[in-house]
């Protein structure tokens, strides 16, 4: 780091210099982190950003000296408060852990011992380090549960982990990490496993408590929005190397490295209604050239120089006078001068797409209901059968031909059950469905071939949705054989035709013919999802249900898939129902949006209508909760209390009343709110009138 910019008064909490980390694979040591520098200043939160495989979590573990058994720090200097961490002995390291250096893990559900009470796990560190006796430690733990805004600390302390929600457990883990005044907290994707409204409250909490405790923190995340909102500084990693680092406001306002620029441009929220910029995905095996810039293969600006010599970290002074801004790129100055538009212009093709006939309804569902579990019965294994879960509660939707319906909601909102009910993987308890005016059976085995072909599904995790023993060509070919119209004839001529059709389909999703023989484990995440998409399109469907189609993918890959889905919709004239917890994805793809909460549609309308007041209070909270990269935007007033209730104990009246910031009283608690409809068809299910909502929310955006 540049010496003159380190303030001399308070030394940094952590200084990592030239750190390299290796993993042993077979007999060889493989370099996964190469010469990374990282400085965390006292009382500051440093964000570490990168996609999967960038080595960001490994770096966190290296700092904690907690690499897996086959990992080691090969080179470099690591100093914590001036102490050389690479020379420190075991017992001194244990003394630091749990007190001075603490950790908040990614997955709260698995990070606490399932068979030990919360209170006992919370006081463990205090007893271990002889900080206080068990009584004092218990009281201290209760105080801290209160500080992380847990309403009933006593009850939570006495619980076992499985009795608490993920958000609650993450609060417990945060309390554990902060309760002994650490100097450094390392947080590894602490909100990734949580719902967006919970994530927002956890980010608030972290900001308040880390700063309140005067701790420094390393916040590891793939989520640029969360980093932008929480951190002071940020470092961007790619393939084990540092690409760029600097103050958050500076770096996000003027990103210099093509990778950072690409990442920011990938965010669907920034594209508006246009095509997303993306970073072309490259098969991982191709990325192994040690002398080149690690990003060269995916970089639109790469030159021969980039492929011959690795760039060095250079200082790029930005708009903030004293800020340090480092970038590892040969061309950052030229790229910066170009100042290219982040959004790709529409291609000729897209503009010439004929508008589908106006609002001809392709698919509609009325009054769909689906419950799980029978409240009256007790099962043989002795488990009390749970109260019936009303996963989908009187839902009506309509999807016009060639249009996209976005269904958004948090986990437990019933959106996935709705999708499964539409494709008849679940049998609806009540309600009617129609495709092109023909009634659909809610039972899969009573659906005609024509209907089965007409509705296809794309699943969240392509790794699980593809049979690992079928090559890409076999997977897609199977759909042609089962659902093709007409199916390819038998015999050698049929096989040839099938092959031709599969190859065409592969090309339609941007994969070359050589992918025909690749098996899923030879494909990257994005490629697998392309194959899954090709398979869904093989039967020439009318409607495609996409359940979280990009949530298991990195942002740069997400952009590729979202573009592909948009292209295919126009070329093949299909309709989509896209289900996602991510409002940005929905806003990008959908013409019409339904917002679900606890199995009910609480608001529905056009993309435009959902994005501006009046909103349903839940929609407003969802919009406010999604972290976005907007330098300078920090304060967001609307936060929901507590977690989404279990669908088992669905609140009476308006299901949202327990968390609603606009709760008025008895009427919300006891009466089902009316559906308030605007002239344009925008619907809000709320006791407040549209005018009232507008008045409350009008000044918000």
């Amino acid at each position, binding site marked *: 780091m540049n010496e003159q910019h380190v303030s001399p008064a308070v030394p940094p909490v952590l200084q990592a210099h030239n750190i390299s980390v290796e993993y042993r694979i077979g007999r060889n040591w493989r370099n996964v982190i190469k010469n990374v520098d990282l400085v965390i200043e006292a009382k500051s939160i440093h964000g570490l950003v990168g996609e999967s495989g960038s080595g960001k979590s490994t770096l966190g573990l290296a700092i904690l000296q907690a690499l897996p058994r086959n990992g080691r720090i090969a080179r470099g200097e690591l100093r914590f408060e001036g102490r050389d961490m690479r020379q420190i002995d075991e017992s001194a390291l244990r003394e*630091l852990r*749990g007190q001075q250096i603490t950790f908040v893990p990614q997955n709260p559900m698995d990070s*606490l011992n399932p*068979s030990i009470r919360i209170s006992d796990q919370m006081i463990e560190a205090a007893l271990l380090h002889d900080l206080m006796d068990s009584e004092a430690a218990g009281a201290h733990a209760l105080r801290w549960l209160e500080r992380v805004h847990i309403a009933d600390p006593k009850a939570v302390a006495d619980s076992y982990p499985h*009795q608490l929600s993920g958000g609650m457990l993450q609060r417990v883990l945060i309390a554990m990490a902060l309760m002994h005044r650490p100097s450094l907290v390392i947080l590894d994707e602490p909100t990734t496993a949580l719902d967006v409204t919970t994530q927002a409250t956890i980010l608030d909490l972290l900001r308040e408590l880390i700063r309140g405790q005067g701790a420094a923190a390393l916040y590891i995340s793939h989520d640029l929005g969360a980093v932008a909102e929480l951190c002071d500084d940020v470092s961007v990693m790619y393939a084990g190397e540092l690409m760029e680092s600097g103050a958050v406001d500076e770096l996000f306002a003027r990103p210099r490295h093509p990778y950072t620029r690409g990442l920011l441009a990938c965010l669907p929220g920034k594209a508006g209604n246009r095509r997303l910029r993306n970073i072309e995905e490259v098969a991982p095996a191709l990325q192994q050239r040690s002398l080149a810039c690690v990003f060269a293969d995916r970089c639109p600006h790469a030159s021969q120089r980039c492929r011959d010599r690795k760039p060095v970290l250079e200082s790029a002074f930005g708009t903030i006078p004293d800020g340090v801004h480092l970038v590892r790129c040969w061309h950052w100055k030229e790229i910066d001068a170009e100042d290219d538009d982040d959004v790709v212009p529409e291609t000729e093709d897209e503009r010439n797409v004929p508008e589908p006939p106006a609002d001809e309804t392709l698919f509609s569902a009325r009054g769909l209901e689906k419950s799980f579990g029978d409240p009256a019965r007790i099962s043989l294994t002795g488990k009390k059968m749970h109260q019936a879960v009303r996963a989908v509660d009187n839902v009506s939707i309509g999807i016009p031909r060639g249009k996209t319906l976005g269904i958004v909601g948090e986990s437990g909102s019933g959106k996935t059950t709705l999708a499964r009910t539409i494709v008849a993987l679940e049998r609806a308890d009540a309600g009617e469905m129609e495709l092109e005016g023909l009634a659909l059976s809610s039972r899969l085995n009573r659906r005609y071939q024509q209907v089965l072909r007409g509705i296809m599904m794309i699943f969240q995790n392509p790794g699980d949705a593809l049979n690992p023993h079928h090559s890409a060509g076999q997977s897609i070919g199977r759909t042609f054989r089962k659902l093709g119209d007409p199916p390819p004839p038998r015999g050698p001529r049929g096989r040839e035709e099938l092959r031709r059709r599969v190859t065409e389909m592969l090309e339609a999703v941007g994969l070359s013919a050589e992918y025909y023989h690749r098996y899923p484990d030879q494909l990257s995440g994005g490629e697998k999802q392309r194959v899954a998409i090709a398979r869904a399109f093989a039967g020439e469907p009318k409607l495609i249900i996409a359940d979280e189609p990009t949530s298991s993918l990195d942002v740069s890959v997400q952009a590729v898939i979202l573009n592909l889905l948009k292209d295919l919709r126009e070329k093949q004239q299909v309709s989509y129902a896209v289900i996602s917890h991510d409002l940005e994805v929905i806003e990008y793809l959908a013409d019409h949006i339904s917002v679900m909460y606890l199995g009910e549609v609480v608001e529905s309308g056009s993309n435009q209508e959902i994005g501006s007041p009046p909103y349903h209070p839940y929609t407003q909270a969802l919009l406010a909760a999604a972290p976005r990269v907007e330098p300078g935007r920090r304060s967001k007033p609307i936060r929901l209390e507590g977690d989404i209730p279990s669908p088992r104990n669905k609140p009476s009246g308006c299901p949202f009343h327990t968390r609603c910031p606009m709760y008025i009283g008895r009427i919300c608690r006891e009466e089902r709110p009316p559906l308030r409809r605007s002239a344009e068809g925008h619907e809000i299910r709320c006791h407040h009138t549209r005018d009232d909502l507008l008045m409350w929310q009008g000044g918000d955006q």
Partner: protein
Amino acid sequence: MISYLLRRLGMMAVTLMVTSILIFALTQLLPGDVAKLVLGRDASPAAVENFNSQYGLDRPPIEQYLRWIGGFLTADWGVSYTAGAPPVRPLVIGRMVNSLILAMATLLFAVPLSLFLGIVSAVREGSWIDQGISITSLAVVGLPEFVTGIVLINAVAVGLGWFSASSMVNEGQGLLEWIRILVLPAITASLVLIGYITRMTRASTIEELKKPYVRTALLKGMTLRQVLMKHVLRNALLPSITIIAISFGWLMGGLVVIENVFNYPGMGSLLVTAVGFKNLPVLQSISMIIVFYFSLANLIADLLYAWLNPRIRLG
């Protein structure tokens, strides 16, 4: 928990009822005519008829079943077909007690040892200790019991003269005498179990060590040993409980070979003799006892599992 217990007991009763029907049906299917087997090939038709009516074998099967099960429930287990027609109950109960003693002795030896070995190999996964334990336990499981038994007899009993080779159980013998008798058969039976339980414990401990909560605990500043004792074992040993319960069922009825090698009077050898001679009263009673212990062991295992696991205990 109480209602869970009651429900499980009810299920156990139903299981026993169903198996009693199965046992009865299967004994009917055994080849050979009982009377001819007992009285000899050349028995006169009158003697056969006499035998059949004496033991109720001329009645319809349903009546035979009801008589048997009714008697079994009221402690009247009938008389054996062997000479002198001794009552079945004292015979079977005596053997049952012997089997119980051997089973307990085996578990006392095998369980702590194999849990220890399993945990050690899990913690040292991939090391030479782990590989040594794995190879040895696998080899021992592969050896037939009569081989290990005979080797042990020759080495320890005959060669060194430490323990008795044959296990004549006498009335009123002291504890020391019992131990001398039990050691060799218990070790032989243990060798089969140890491999099994060790591998199970190793696998579940390795899996548990990979869970994120282990890292949480380590990053509090605990040593690996502390993490193991306080956090890992209470979860890792749960699956072993089920394995141990199933082993108990096997020990009660399945030790035919070992009982023969050591001449130990347990239920297994009696069962085989009864099958050979189609001694139905003995056969049926022993089968019921074995099924009873098997389901009892499983019930205890499930209760223990639920009690140790808050996710089940608290739902």
